[in-house]
């Protein structure tokens, strides 16, 4: 296996998927788990992608134009081949996106694309996407991220069938899947005919290492060259190792405490605000993720729009006096009980424990933590059988994926039972506003409204990390946690 050939003649990139070991499918329309996309990024291309400055740039489309507020036109590159040697064309684009929209595909990402009304092939290398209304997130959703809009080979999918395609995907990316052992490893082999050029290292092995700490010992012991994550607690130590390089940046993620707005005690806005002012988010950053992140005053990660001034509200500043005053306005008294669901064994769990400790100290409440695993906690939250829960989302690129889904009345991630007409109107405005500057202002208003109503308690954004052996070059990290899209330009030595 991958261990025994460490010193083999042909160069091999050993890129470990750490913290996860489940990959069920590599069909972009069906994929949902982060490690599934780690690989999909390298096997497929989308119409667009993000460059190293997180600007939208060409991928399978060489350029695009906004025909009118409801119509985007993409000019496709010519002469692109799929892994099976067949030609890429506008047919494949239309097929791939329409497939995500079809109900029977049951794509987890279907909801994101539902504003699309029509996809027209203008000619073999031009395609138009029309939406029912102006839809600002559309360009972001056409990138090679967790969007399901990666372009698959129509013929290959039709002839293989969905299930087989999910195991042996045919795309245009710089790597193909060579071997796949469930829960253990995925092996990739370079695609010499890739339009982005043949990869520098043709053989890649991706062992799946469930324990992050084992991923760390693996790279320290030179069993792997690169990891997809790193344990927060060990970053400082790792940064001092001469043979390891830690690359990190503020991630596109948000960590917060979800509240059930329909159930005592978080059904009272004064209580929610009081709790929000009763804990110090900076303490969480220090104690939970060892300083590897920043406290956030809202839902949107600061790295989404680095130049943007965040919404400012006192409701998220630690202030015991104001917290107590606000608590007095609520219908609850000191001694109030409540349960915070928390999960996992390490830092996720500490969020709940430290939060509860601080709030109880300031307000005299008797909140407690109940620990289980994510699946159990989330199933309860979805069913409304909870009061508060430690939560987080990561790897999304559009503000609507965060705010629309979390606080929109119909959002899939709205487990708070929060519904506000004012909020829905703002979120709709955010979806329709094509001017980026104006769009930012809409989301700032939405954040301020969210902080007034406090349906959830924003806590912090954490850094994303990759560990590299010191001789590994060419991997460019992006804040949404990219991975295999970079393998093609990686060099060892």
């Amino acid at each position, binding site marked *: 296996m991958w*261990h025994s050939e460490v010193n083999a003649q042909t160069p091999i990139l050993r890129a470990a998927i750490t913290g996860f070991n489940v990959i069920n499918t590599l069909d972009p329309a069906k994929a949902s788990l982060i490690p599934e996309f780690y690989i999909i990024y390298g096997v497929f291309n989308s119409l667009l992608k993000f460059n190293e400055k997180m600007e939208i740039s060409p991928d399978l489309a060489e350029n695009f134009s906004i025909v009118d507020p409801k119509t985007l036109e993409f000019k496709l590159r010519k002469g692109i081949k799929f892994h099976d040697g067949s030609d890429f064309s506008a047919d494949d684009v239309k097929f791939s996106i329409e497939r995500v929209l079809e109900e029977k595909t*049951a794509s987890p990402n*279907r909801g994101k694309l539902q504003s699309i009304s029509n996809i027209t092939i203008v000619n073999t290398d031009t395609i138009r996407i029309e939406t029912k209304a102006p839809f600002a997130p559309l360009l972001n959703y056409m990138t090679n991220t967790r969007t399901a809009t990666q372009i698959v080979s129509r013929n290959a999918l039709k002839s293989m069938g969905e299930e087989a395609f999910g195991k042996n995907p045919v795309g245009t990316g710089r790597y193909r899947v060579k071997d796949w052992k469930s829960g253990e490893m995925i092996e990739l082999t370079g695609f010499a005919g890739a339009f982005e050029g043949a990869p520098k290292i043709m053989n890649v092995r991706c*062992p799946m290492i469930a*324990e992050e*700490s*084992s*991923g760390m010992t*693996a790279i*320290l012991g030179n069993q792997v060259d690169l990891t997809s994550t790193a344990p927060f607690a060990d970053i400082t130590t790792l940064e001092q190792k001469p043979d390891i390089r830690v690359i990190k940046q503020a991630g596109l993620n948000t960590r917060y405490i979800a509240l059930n707005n329909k159930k005592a005690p978080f059904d009272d806005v004064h209580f929610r605000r009081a709790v929000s002012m009763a804990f110090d988010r900076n303490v969480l950053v220090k104690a939970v993720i060892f300083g590897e992140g920043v406290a956030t005053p809202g839902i949107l990660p600061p790295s989404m729009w680095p130049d943007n001034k965040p919404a400012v509200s006192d409701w998220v500043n630690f202030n015991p006096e104001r917290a107590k005053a606000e608590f007095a306005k609520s219908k609850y008294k000191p001694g109030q009980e409540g349960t915070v669901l928390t999960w996992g064994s390490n830092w996720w769990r500490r969020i709940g424990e430290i939060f509860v400790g601080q709030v109880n100290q300031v307000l005299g409440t008797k909140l407690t933590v109940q620990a289980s695993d994510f699946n159990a906690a989330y199933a309860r939250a979805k069913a409304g059988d909870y009061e508060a829960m430690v939560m987080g989302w990561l790897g999304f690129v559009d503000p609507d994926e965060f705010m629309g889904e979390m606080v929109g009345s119909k959002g899939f991630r709205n487990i708070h039972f929060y519904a506000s007409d004012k909020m829905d109107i703002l979120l709709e405005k955010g979806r329709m506003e094509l001017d980026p500057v104006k769009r930012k202002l809409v989301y700032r208003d939405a954040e301020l409204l969210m902080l007034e109503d406090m349906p959830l308690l924003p806590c912090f954004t954490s850094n994303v990390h990759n560990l590299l052996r010191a001789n590994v070059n060419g991997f460019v990290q992006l804040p949404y946690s990219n991975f295999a899209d970079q393998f093609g330009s990686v060099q060892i030595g």
Partner: protein
Amino acid sequence: MVFAVGMTRQLLGRLGGVFILALLGSASVFFAMRMGAGDPAIAALGDFATPEAIAAFRTKWGIDQPVVLQYWKWLLNALQGDFGTSMTIAANVPIAKLIASRLPNTMFIGLLALTIAVLISLFAGTLSVLRHGQLVDTVATSLAILGISMPDFWLSYVLIYIFALGLGIFPSYGFVTPPESFSAALYCGFLPALAVAAPMAAAFTRILRTALLETLHREHVRVARSFGFRASFIFIHYVMRNALIPYVTVVGLQIRYILGGTVVVERIFGVPGIGALMVDAAFARDYPVVQACALTFLIGVLSVNLIVDFVCAALNPREIT
């Protein structure tokens, strides 16, 4: 003749017992899994799955049907040797294939661990009796207490830090399966096996030491001594043989923990074994995989118990009825 009939009757009775226990065990695992919170659809489709996608998933896997009916269907298929396919950790992969590829790795590490533990204990146990009360005995007894008290995950990391990252003798992560290369499997498997073996070696050493000391002062040994047999002859034929009965029982009892005991160690060292498979499946609510793993464990443990009983009977024929 009587001996053989007794053995056969006992064996058949025990096999029947194994079958009934396996049935009860599988039912309790099945219903316990379904009663616990959690949802396979969330595990498979991720946290942003649409309601339609979740509904489609439930229908596809039949988990929208009454639980009793689901169990009945599972049982009918299982009795025909069909464990179905994985739902959430290796979608659509036949479970029999998953277990067939994972179980040998767990058994390899387990047997390697058992061998290490038996070798260490035979050596340390005997030595500490022969040097009873001396420094060697104290050291062996202290190490045994340490071995029993050390959690396996901690010991695993200690071994990695010393032998892999520090001395660089062994790999810090990864495994080569025995069919690929037996020597590489021994090499990669040594540290995980040692981590699994440590508590066992400690338990074995203690029981062997106690049993040997006890037997040493029994009457038949004194009689043997009065015959003027050589000390080494007496130790091997009169002391060791009798002391081996409790020893083998304890070794047998510990074998059942090999399967479960490797769970954490497998994850830390990256050994693709059945313990890690079951844990992953449980977290992802992959009901049929958990079910099949549990049944494998159960049958494994019951078979080991059976074998241990018969080995003990063979060592001590007096107890056969």
